[in-house]
C-alpha cells in the first residue's frame, strides 16, 4: 500500500526533486518545483504525524533488507514532529518569501540555489527519519553542505566569511560525531540504533564507549549551537539571504538536538551506569549559561538579524534545559519548544524578510518608524515576538508553562531554574521592546526612502504563520501529544 511508503517518500521527494530543479530554466521554474516538492513533503509529514498516533514507531526497511542488516527508517512521534517542522518551515518560507528570494538570488544562480534548498530539506528529513547512525551522518553531511551553499547563495560578501566559519565548525562537529559512531561500531559491530541499544549491554570494556559519548555529545552540541560552541551561528544567520535565515532558524539546530537526544537516550542512557546524572550535570549548567548569556548579548545587539540569532541561541538553551531535567515533563517542555520556537522564530525572520525588501540596512536605528510604514508586517512580527516572550495566548506560553512546571518538580534546584527561566523571559521583553520602540515610537529619518507595505501574497503567508502562533497557543493538542509521546518513549529507554 502507498501508506507504507510514506517514510521513504519523506526523504525521496525532496532528494529526487533536487537534480530536476538544477536542470530547470526559466524565471521561477526551479522555485515552483522546490515549493511543490516541499509542500508534498509537508503533506507526507503530516500524514506520518497522524499515523504515529496509532503505530509508534513506524519502521521501514529500505530495499526490503531487514534491520539491522539493511538500512532502517524509523518514524517515531519525535521524528514526525521534527519532519513537520522541517517541511512546514520550508514550504511556508518558500511561498511567502518569493519576492525576497527574487530580490536576493540572481537568476543565473536560482536553479542551483533551489537544488541546494531541496537537498537541505531532504538531508534534514533524512536525519530525523533514519534509524541508522551512519545514515544519520550521511544525511547530516548532505544537509550541511547544502546549507553552506544556501547561506552563501546571496550577494552579501560577509556571508562568505560567515559560512567559512560555519563550515569549519560544522565539519568538526560532524567529524566528532563520526569518530563517536566509529568507536561504537568497533565495540558493537552494528550501526542500527535499536540494535546498538541491545548490543552495547554486552560490551565489557566501556572505555571506547565513554569516549564515544564525549565525541557524539560534543559534536552535536557544536552543531546545535549550545554555549560556548555557538560562535558560528550569529553571523551565519545574520548574513545569509533572509529567507534562508527563516528556514534554518526554524529547524536546523533543532535537528541536531533531536539526534543528540535520540542517540543519548537510546544508546547511552540505558547501558551506562550513572550516565543520566552525568548527562544532566553536564548539560544543565551549559543550558543555563546559554539562556542567560545569549539573552544578555541580544539585549545589546544592534543588528536586527544578529539580535534574533542570539535569541535563537537562548531558545536552544531552553530546549536543552528541559531535556537535562530528565523527566517526562521536562522533555515534553523541551520538545514542544522545538515546535513553538520554530513557529515564532520562523515568523519573525519571515517578517524581517518582508521589511528587508524595502530597506537596505537592518540596523536597529535604521528601522525607525517602520511600524507605521509597514504596519502589517511589523504587527505580525510583534505577534510572534510576544510568543517568544511567552505571553499567554501564544504558542510560546505553552512551552514556558511546561518548562516552569518541570523545573518546579526538581525541588530546590528547580526554584533556581524557574528564576533563570523568568529572568530570561524578562530579558526577552527587553530586547523585543527595543525593536518595538524604534519601530513605532521613533520618527523615520526625513531623508529616508518612502517605504510601502509588501505585496498581499507575502503578507497573507506571513499572517498565516503569525496566526499559527496564536492557534497553537490556544489549541496545543497535536504538538503536545507528539512531544509527550516522544518524551515518554525517550525515557522508556531508561531501565
Amino acid at each position, binding site marked *: 500500500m502507498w501508506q507504507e511508503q510514506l517514510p521513504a517518500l519523506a526523504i525521496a521527494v525532496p532528494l529526487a526533486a533536487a537534480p530536476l530543479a538544477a536542470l530547470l530554466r526559466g524565471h521561477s521554474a526551479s522555485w515552483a518545483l522546490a515549493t511543490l516538492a516541499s509542500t508534498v513533503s509537508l503533506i507526507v509529514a503530516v500524514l506520518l504525524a497522524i499515523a504515529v498516533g496509532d503505530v509508534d514507531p513506524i519502521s521501514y526497511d529500505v530495499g526490503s533488507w531487514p534491520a539491522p542488516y539493511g538500512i532502517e527508517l524509523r518514524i517515531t512521534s519525535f521524528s514526525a514532529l521534527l519532519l513537520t517542522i522541517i517541511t512546514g518551515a520550508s514550504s511556508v518560507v518558500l511561498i511567502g518569501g518569493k519576492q525576497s528570494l527574487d530580490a536576493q538570488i540572481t537568476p543565473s544562480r536560482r536553479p542551483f540555489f533551489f537544488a541546494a534548498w531541496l537537498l537541505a530539506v531532504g538531508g534534514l528529513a533524512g536525519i530525523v527519519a533514519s534509524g541508522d547512525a551512519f545514515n544519520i551522518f550521511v544525511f547530516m553531511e548532505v544537509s550541511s553542505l547544502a546549507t553552506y551553499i544556501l547561506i552563501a547563495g546571496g550577494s552579501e560578501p560577509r556571508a562568505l566569511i560567515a559560512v567559512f566559519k560555519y563550515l569549519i565548525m560544522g565539519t568538526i562537529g560532524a567529524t566528532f560525531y563520526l569518530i563517536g559512531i566509529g568507536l561504537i561500531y568497533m565495540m558493537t559491530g552494528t550501526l542500527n540504533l535499536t540494535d546498538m541499544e541491545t548490543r552495547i549491554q554486552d560490551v565489557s570494556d566501556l572505555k571506547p564507549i565513554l569516549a564515544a559519548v564525549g565525541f557524539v555529545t560534543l559534536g552535536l552540541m557544536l552543531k546545535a549551537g549550545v554555549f560556548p560552541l555557538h560562535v558560528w551561528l550569529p553571523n551565519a544567520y545574520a548574513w545569509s539571504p533572509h529567507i534562508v535565515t527563516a528556514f534554518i532558524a526554524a529547524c536546523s539546530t533543532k535537528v541536531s538536538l533531536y539526534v543528540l537526544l535520540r542517540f543519548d537516550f537510546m544508546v547511552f542512557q540505558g547501558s551506562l551506569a550513572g550516565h543520566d546524572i552525568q548527562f544532566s550535570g553536564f548539560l544543565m549548567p551549559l543550558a543555563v549559561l546559554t539562556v542567560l548569556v545569549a539573552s544578555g548579548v541580544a539585549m545589546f545587539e544592534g543588528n536586527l538579524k544578529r539580535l534574533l540569532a542570539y535569541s535563537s541561541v537562548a531558545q536552544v538553551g531552553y530546549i536543552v534545559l528541559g531535556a537535562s531535567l530528565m523527566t517526562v515533563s521536562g522533555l515534553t517542555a523541551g520538545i514542544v519548544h522545538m515546535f513553538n520556537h520554530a513557529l515564532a522564530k520562523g515568523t519573525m525572520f519571515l517578517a524581517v524578510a518582508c521589511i528587508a525588501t524595502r530597506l537596505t540596512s537592518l540596523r536597529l536605528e535604521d528601522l525607525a518608524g517602520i511600524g507605521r510604514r509597514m504596519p502589517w508586517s511589523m504587527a505580525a512580527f510583534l505577534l510572534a515576538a510576544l510568543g517568544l516572550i511567552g505571553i*499567554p495566548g501564544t504558542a510560546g506560553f*505553552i512551552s514556558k508553562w511546561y518548562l*516552569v512546571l518541570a523545573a518546579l518538580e526538581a525541588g530546590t534546584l528547580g526554584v533556581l531554574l524557574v528564576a533563570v527561566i523568568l529572568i530570561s523571559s524578562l530579558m526577552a521583553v527587553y530586547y523585543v521592546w527595543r525593536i518595538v520602540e524604534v519601530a513605532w515610537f521613533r520618527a523615520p529619518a526625513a531623508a529616508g526612502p518612502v517605504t510601502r507595505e509588501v505585496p498581499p501574497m507575502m503578507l497573507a503567508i506571513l499572517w498565516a504563520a503569525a496566526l499559527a502562533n496564536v492557534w497553537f497557543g490556544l489549541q496545543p493538542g497535536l504538538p503536545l501529544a507528539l512531544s509527550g509521546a516522544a518524551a515518554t518513549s525517550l525515557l522508556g529507554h531508561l531501565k
Partner: protein
Amino acid sequence: MSGASLILLAIALPLAGALGIALTHARPNLREAVSLATAAGLAVVVWTLLPEVLAGARPSFELMTLMPGLAIRFAVEPLGALFASLASLLWIVNTIYSIGYMRGNRERHQTRFYILFAVALFATIGIAFAGNLITLFIFYEVLTLSTYPLVAHKGDAKTVASARVYLGVLLATSIGLLLPAIIWTWRTAGTVDFTPGGILDGRISGPAVGLLLALFMFGTGKAALMPVHRWLPAAMVAPTPVSALLHAVAVVKAGVFVVTKLVVYVFGVDFLHAQASAGWLLYVAGFTTIAASVVALRQDNLKRLLAYSTVAQLSYVTLAAALYRPAAEVGAALHIAAHGLGKITLFFAAGSIYTAAKKTEISQLDGIGRRMPWTLAAFTIGALAMIGLPPTAGFVSKWQILMGSLESGAWFAVAVIVVSTALNAAYFLPIVHRAWFRTESSAPAAGHGEAPWPVVLAVTATAALTVAFFFFHRPVLELAWQIVGAAP
C-alpha cells in the same frame, strides 16, 4: 438569553466594536457612534446578567481546553459581576467624555485610541468574568499590552520613557512573580478554578503560604502595592480619558479585584486568617496607604496627585482584603466601586480643566471654580468621596472597612484609616479651597468658560453617580455579601 451566551456576548462585543471602529476610521462621527453603541451594548449585556447573579445563579462558559485540565473558562460570580457592571457603565460615560476631550485637544491617532480602548475593555471584562487563574492571567496580560500604546499615545521621548516604566513594571511583575505563583498553585492544588472557600486549604502550610501570597500580591502589579507602584504615576502621561477610565477604574481595579479574588476564591478567607505567615500583607498595605498619601501631599501636578491618591486608595482595598474577615472583604468590594466612581470624577475634572484652561498644576487653580462651576462642583464631590465624607460613595465603603477592622480587632487597620483620612483631607481640601475661595491672581490671556459640553456632561454624570451610590447602595451591598456567602 442564557447566562452562557450572555457571557460570550459580553466578551465578544468590545472586540467586535474594535473592528467596527477600525472599519469606520475615515468617518469620525460614525466611528464615535460605533464606540458609543458598543459601550452601551456592553453595559446592557452585563447589566442583564446582574439580576441573575443577584438571585444566586453562577452562569459559566467554557471556551476551549488549553492543556489537559486547563481550560479558558468564564464564570460570573458576585465580585466579577460588580466589577464588570462598574467598568461597563463608566465606559459609556467615558466614551462621551473622550469625544469631547480628544476633539477639544485635537489629539492625533484618534482611531487607534478608540480601538485600543475597546480592546482594553475586552480584557477588563475577560478579567472580571475569568473562571480560573489561567484565563485571568491571559486577559491580565492583554490589558497590559493594549494599554501600553494608550499610555505612549503622545509619542514624544518623555512619554515613551514613561510608557517603558509602565510596561516594564507590569510585565516584569506578572511574568516574574504572578505566573510562577499560578504554576505553583496548579502544582499544589491540581486546579486553578476559582472556588468559594479557596482551593489551597490543607494543601500548603507554614511559611510557604506567606511566600505564595507574596508572589501573588507583588505579582499583581496593577494593585500598586509598594514598591511595585511606580508604573501608576508614570502612566499619567496618557491622555486624560485613559487616566480616568483605565488608571482609575479598569486597570487599577483589575489589580485590586485580583487581590480580593485571590483572597476569597483561591486562598480562602478562613484559611488565610489562620495562617500566621499571611499577616504581613496588612502592614504592607497600610504602609503603602500612608506613604502614598504623604507623597501626594507634596505634589503640585494635579494628575500626579491623583495618581498617588489612587495608589493610597488601592491599598485600602488590599488592606481590607488582608484583614481576612468576611465583613472586610465586603468593604473591599464596595471600595472598588466607590473609589472608581469618585476617582473617575476627579480625573474627568482634571481633564476638563486642561481642555478649557490648559492648566495642569494645582498652584494655577486659584479662583477657577467661578469660571468652571460644574467641573469644580464635581471635583469637590470627588474629593469628598476620597476623604470618605457623606453624602458620597466613599463614606459607604470606608464605613464597611472600618466595621471589618473593628470586628477583627485590627487596631493597626483602624489607625491607618484614621490617619489616611486626615491626610486625604489635607491634600484635597486646599485644592477645593483654592478653586472656590481665592481670587485669580491675573485673568488668563484668553478668557475661558467650561470645557466642551460632552466633557461637562460626563463629569456631572459621574459626580451624580458618586452621590447616588451613597443613597442607593443597598443592591451593591447585597451583591458584595454574596461574595463571602452571607447576607448583610
